[in-house]
């Protein structure tokens, strides 16, 4: 087995690790798993937190280690902060899975770039008539919005 194939296998396993707070998507979909390398026979997985205070990071680290340990003898999980994660790292697959789960994926970030942007459409009915209910939601990465067409509230992953 070549190292390249082994790394591919590691990525495939990582794609099975759900985000504890957004279980519809994996740590690969979200761009939390950043890199997989072999370092002197040891598999080194690099992950990055979404928010400084994301309480799920330790759990993610544990989940990644546990799952990869099933296949690899020597696994190390490293956390890096730089460059900082942004929602641009969420894959197209990830955005689709979020929408399918009723969670609006991050919209385009507005100027100034530090602002959270807004959902492109209601994940329930597709209407673009949406408004913010609360800037802080059930987890650090989400805000609460609602659709004024179908009247349903929904979670929005803030552009970050």
């Amino acid at each position, binding site marked *: 087995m070549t190292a390249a194939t082994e790394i591919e296998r590691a990525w495939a396993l990582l794609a099975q690790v759900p985000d504890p707070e957004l279980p519809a998507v994996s740590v690969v979909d979200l761009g939390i798993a950043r890199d997989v390398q072999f370092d002197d026979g040891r598999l080194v997985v690099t992950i990055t937190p979404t928010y400084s205070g994301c309480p799920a990071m330790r759990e993610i680290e544990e989940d990644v280690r546990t799952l990869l340990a099933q296949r690899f003898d020597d696994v190390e999980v490293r956390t890096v902060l730089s460059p900082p994660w942004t929602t641009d790292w969420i894959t197209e697959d990830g955005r689709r899975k979020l929408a399918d789960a009723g969670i609006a994926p991050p919209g385009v970030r507005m100027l100034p770039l530090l602002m959270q942007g807004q959902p492109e459409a209601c994940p329930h009915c597709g209407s673009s008539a949406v408004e913010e209910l*609360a800037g802080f939601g059930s987890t650090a990465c989400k805000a609460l919005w609602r659709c004024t067409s179908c009247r349903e509230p929904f979670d929005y992953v803030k552009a970050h």
Partner: protein
Amino acid sequence: MGDHAVEALLRVGDSCLVLAQRLTAWCGHAPALEEDIALANIALDILGQARGLLTRTGEIEGAGRDEDALAYLRDAPDYRNVLLVEQPNGDYGHTMLRQFLFDAWAVELWPRLASSSDPVVAGIAGKAAKEAAYHVRHSSTWVVRLGDGTEESHHRMLAALDMLWPYTGEAFLDDEVDVAAAESALMPLPSSLLPAYRHRVEAVLADATLPVPPDPWWQRGGRQGSHSEHLTYLLADMQVVHRAHPGASW
């Protein structure tokens, strides 16, 4: 880098830690569910920033202290936070004004720290800058809403401003630690953040129909370890479990 780096980093890290601890006291007590959630989220972000900075501080210090040792095993005179963040919560408007007066500083500090000569500090700051921008949006909205609200809310905000204003100067007073940290490009000089801070604060207070108070004698000393009695009680609360069960894990 050496002692000045440790001191300078503690000033920011401790300010975040103490404020996060203050904010968590609102959990389950805020006037509306949305605000309860907002404050818990903001506290988590700021606690995360504190953890990153304290961990890094311990590494630079090289004395084997990790984030827990720094957070739980230091007494008040070893804390280096600004006095503003140890002030009691008061009512919700008071807490929001304190938050705004902090956020308006943080939102200037973090982008500058993002180009710190210390790459780990720069990484922490890169994330924190985005979070602080989101926080200041929230807190300034509330300062305007309550300041320019009812007669009752206006008067409460005036009283809060009167109480808190003397604590807003400390973060911008340079001393030899700050000068050394700026010379090594670890951190910007505190006074260099003041013009942008004043600009933002004055604009939001104007929107809130709250007059900018005259410059008082700025309360100071927190960044050098002289604290009010408030911090002692806060730390007792925060540290009691860790100190009662040293090294416990579950």
